[in-house]
């Protein structure tokens, strides 16, 4: 127990004399009077059984740092994990901007309090719009999973249909999210994938499309890293039946890859974590949804949408909510899904990222990623018994490595790599049993030739 009465630095009026003066001013004998509405039976008896506090900032820091130092970072080790959370370089200016107290501690002010927040988010949406070549982009939702799930429910509302077709190779966690989120309204049908390319089997797609189909959904690049090269054919088939195409895309690929709207996507979604967010153990995720500027699409968004508008001063830009009446803030359960605190700060950060990168930076980063991942894929593929050609299709930054020919399990290989300071690719053997002993490797611009060569030699040793 502390030896003196604590005046808490976060609680100005915990100073006893101030507290007493305030009580006196409102005519209360003690704070207990303010809880008069809480019946005795509901009052918590005694003192909560919580760990003893670290009252000084020095002690607090020492305690939390000692816990955090039990972690080994992806800077200390070489990291080849991806699968939805990616190690890309985070520009210093991204951190500088999102650490500013004005942005970090703002919340839900009106445009007259928070003009800068509205403009920064409008600009984020606008830069994403350029990357995606689409005119409507939402203020970020929680993450790419939520973006995909909401995009599919939007598709259901737009088409007034209740069936969606999903590519078989989407990640199991994303599938789990979509199943939960669509359950009340929408039936899910899994599409077979082409055994060679991994892409959607067009014959199976054709057989599953009907007048009840709201949308066809695929990821590009796919969860397993390969590119879906037949997007336009998929879109043409779907559109013949009045179904929408919903594509989840990795935005960092779009300096070199064409945005999905160019092969027929109606709604595009994904996660902006690659655009300037640290991995943070999965805490840097944020989702986007984009579409054409058609009223029937716009009115189905649940998210905040910010628009530009004139003010009463000539030449002055104003920003505020577009079609607010769509939202649950305005209409509770009669609004679209719900809106609330999600991931706005990561949206502002992604805007900073895109502004820093510009068109040339986005092109170059795409090329470097392609070089690095292709080099790694080639070199790993040369190891005896190891296959990196599981899918006969181009890849972006991730690819499947199959170890069946080595007789070794991914778990054992990753354990051996860990001993050498390497986080090997994600073990897919539970998620996709039909891929055997396979792992999903991710290589980005942060890796060097040395890093990749080190991985290859460590793999060789582990498999020897």
């Amino acid at each position, binding site marked *: 127990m502390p030896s003196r009465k604590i005046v808490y630095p*976060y*609680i100005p*009026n915990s100073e006893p004399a101030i*507290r007493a003066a305030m009580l006196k001013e409102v005519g209360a004998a003690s*704070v207990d009077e*303010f809880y008069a*509405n809480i019946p005795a039976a*509901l009052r918590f008896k005694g003192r*909560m*059984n*919580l760990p003893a506090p670290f009252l000084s900032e020095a002690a607090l820091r020492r*305690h*939390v*740092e000692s816990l*955090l130092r039990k972690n080994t*970072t992806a800077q200390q080790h070489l990291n080849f994990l991806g699968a939805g959370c990616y190690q890309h370089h985070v*520009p210093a200016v991204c951190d500088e901007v999102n650490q*500013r107290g*004005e942005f970090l*501690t*703002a*919340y*839900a002010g009106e*445009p*007259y309090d928070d*003009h*800068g*927040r509205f403009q920064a988010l409008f*600009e984020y949406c606008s830069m994403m*719009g350029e*990357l995606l070549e689409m*005119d409507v982009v939402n203020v970020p939702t929680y993450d*790419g*999973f939520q973006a995909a799930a909401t995009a599919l429910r939007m598709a259901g509302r737009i088409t007034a249909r209740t069936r969606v077709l999903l590519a078989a190779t989407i990640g199991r966690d994303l599938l789990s999210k979509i199943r939960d989120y669509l359950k*009340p309204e929408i039936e899910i049908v899994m599409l077979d994938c082409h055994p060679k390319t991994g892409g959607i089997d067009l014959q199976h797609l054709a057989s599953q499309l009907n007048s009840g189909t709201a949308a066809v959904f695929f990821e590009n690049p796919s969860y397993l890293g390969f590119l879906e090269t037949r*997007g336009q054919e998929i879109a043409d088939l779907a559109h013949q039946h009045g179904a929408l195409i919903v594509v989840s895309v990795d935005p960092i690929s779009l300096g*070199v890859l064409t945005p999905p709207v160019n*092969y027929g996507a109606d709604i595009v979604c994904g996660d902006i974590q690659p655009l300037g967010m640290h*991995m*943070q153990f*999965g*805490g840097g*995720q944020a989702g986007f949804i984009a579409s054409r500027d058609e009223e029937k699409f716009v009115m189905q968004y649940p998210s*905040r949408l910010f628009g*530009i*508008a004139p*003010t*009463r001063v000539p030449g002055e830009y104003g920003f*505020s909510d*577009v079609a607010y009446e769509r939202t*649950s803030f305005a209409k509770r359960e009669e609004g679209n*899904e*719900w809106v609330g*605190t999600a*991931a706005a700060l990561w949206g502002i950060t992604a805007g*900073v990222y*895109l502004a820093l*990168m510009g068109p040339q930076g986005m092109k170059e980063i795409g090329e470097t990623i392609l070089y690095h991942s292709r*080099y790694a894929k080639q070199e790993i593929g040369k190891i005896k018994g190891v296959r990196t050609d599981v899918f006969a299709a181009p890849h972006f930054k991730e690819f499947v490595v199959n170890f069946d020919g080595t007789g070794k399990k991914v778990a054992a290989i990753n354990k051996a790599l860990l001993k050498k300071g390497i986080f090997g690719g994600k073990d897919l053997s539970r998620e996709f049993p039909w891929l055997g002993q396979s792992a999903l490797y991710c290589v980005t611009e942060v890796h*060097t030739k040395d890093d990749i060569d080190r991985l290859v030699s460590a793999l060789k040793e582990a498999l020897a």
Partner: protein
Amino acid sequence: MKNITAERYTNGKPNLRRFHQARWDEPVIFELGRPGQRGILVPEAEAEIKSQVGDPLAGIPESLRRENPPHLPEMSQPAVLRHYVHLSQETLGADFNIDVGQGTCTMKYSPKVNDQLARMPEMTELHPLQDEGTVQGILEIMYRFEKILKEISGLDRFTLQPGAGSAAIYTNASIIRAYHASRGEAEKRDEIITTIFSHPSDAACAKVAGYKVITLYPDADGYPDLEALKAAVSERTAGLLITNPEDTGIFNPKIAEFTRVVHEAGGLCSYDQANANGILGITRAREAGFDLCHFNLHKTFSTPHGCGGPGGGATGVTKELARFLPAPLVDFDGGKYFLNYDLPESIGKIRPFYGVAPAVLKAYAWVIALGADGLREVAEVAVLNNNYLMHKILSIRGASAPYATGKPRVEQVRYSWQKLFEDTGIHSDELGIRAADFGVHYWTSHHPYVIPEPCTLEPTESYSKEELDEYAAIIEQVANEAYTDPDLVRTAPHNSTVHTIDHHPLDDPAQWCITWRAYLRKTVIS
């Protein structure tokens, strides 16, 4: 020397600040920069890699390659920084004002040390799929924080996966659905009950989970209506999603009867604890009979609001419902912390991976700096501050606090300016815009406006008596202006970054511009 200080006081009281919000008249970012300028350079693949790989795009069909570069800005690094620093200065973060005006949002102080801790590479540079042995520190923090929430709520198991408060409410609704499905009653039980003074997301998330929503209105004194609840429950009741204290700041003393009535009808009871700040260590979900609850880490637990996230949501349940939680949970086997995926009846994923880990870290650090006594001090001072501010606000001409007259409120109050409106024709939202001229937030309330001309203020524990006096003085000034110079209020803001916005285009599909490219397309060039 002239006594400058004396001129800052009138009748012994400090004058209001002569505030002016930053106004940089900032261009939209697409107007900045010049072709060819660069904000950052990207690593180039090494020569050996290039020669070995050849054409990096080989095998990618033409149709999949980007044809036209995206029309992104081309700017130097300092230009990008300056633009965003200008925009940040035009944003009224909680660090910069007496942020009691965003009621229900719990705009408390977010300790800087916690932000610093969350910026350590041992937090930022962790991949969520790393071997468990390399992430024992963050897993231990998640485990410890869950234990803390169990004690604060009295419930048995928590998931930290939801991205924020509404995602946690949705998680609760989905668990309720899974519970009834496990008993073969999913079809039959298709209604969820909430109250109008519970957050809009309680109604909205229930609907998303497939439920019909029944909304109870308050009784004559503003309390949730027990008789209305009794009339609403039936064999179709799946559950109750309810806030307490409600967004009016009124604690529902009959809450245990509410949960009993719903339980007797076979429903589950879920406690929206977004408003927990005034009751930490005072009253808990368990004693009130709840089966589920949720907390917002960015409200009660101090993590910064980030312009609207990332926040953090925590969903808690009783032992019986733990099997439905989203996987994985964080467990401890006596030797090490691990991710437990053994939940065959789980509702499934709510979010990728395990939640907003840096928010969990900051929330843990906040609690552990305060301890049990400190948390109780938070609650007591938050409630003292609220009742003190209420005392001040109710002395202002035209203000009232409908319902529960003469009774104390918990952590916030929903006020009404109906009298002021009748006297002056000035609406609550106009008062709010004028308040911005003095450097503070002021929020009306969620819709619908059951309380006419509403505003909701929540002082939290973070503001001093003098700051509360200052806030009340601003509101008094604005209210007085409504009586003496209503046009001054009506034409506000006068000291903001921008002037009155023409909202008409924002609701017109032909004119709304949600991106710059849409603006360029829709702009009339004359």
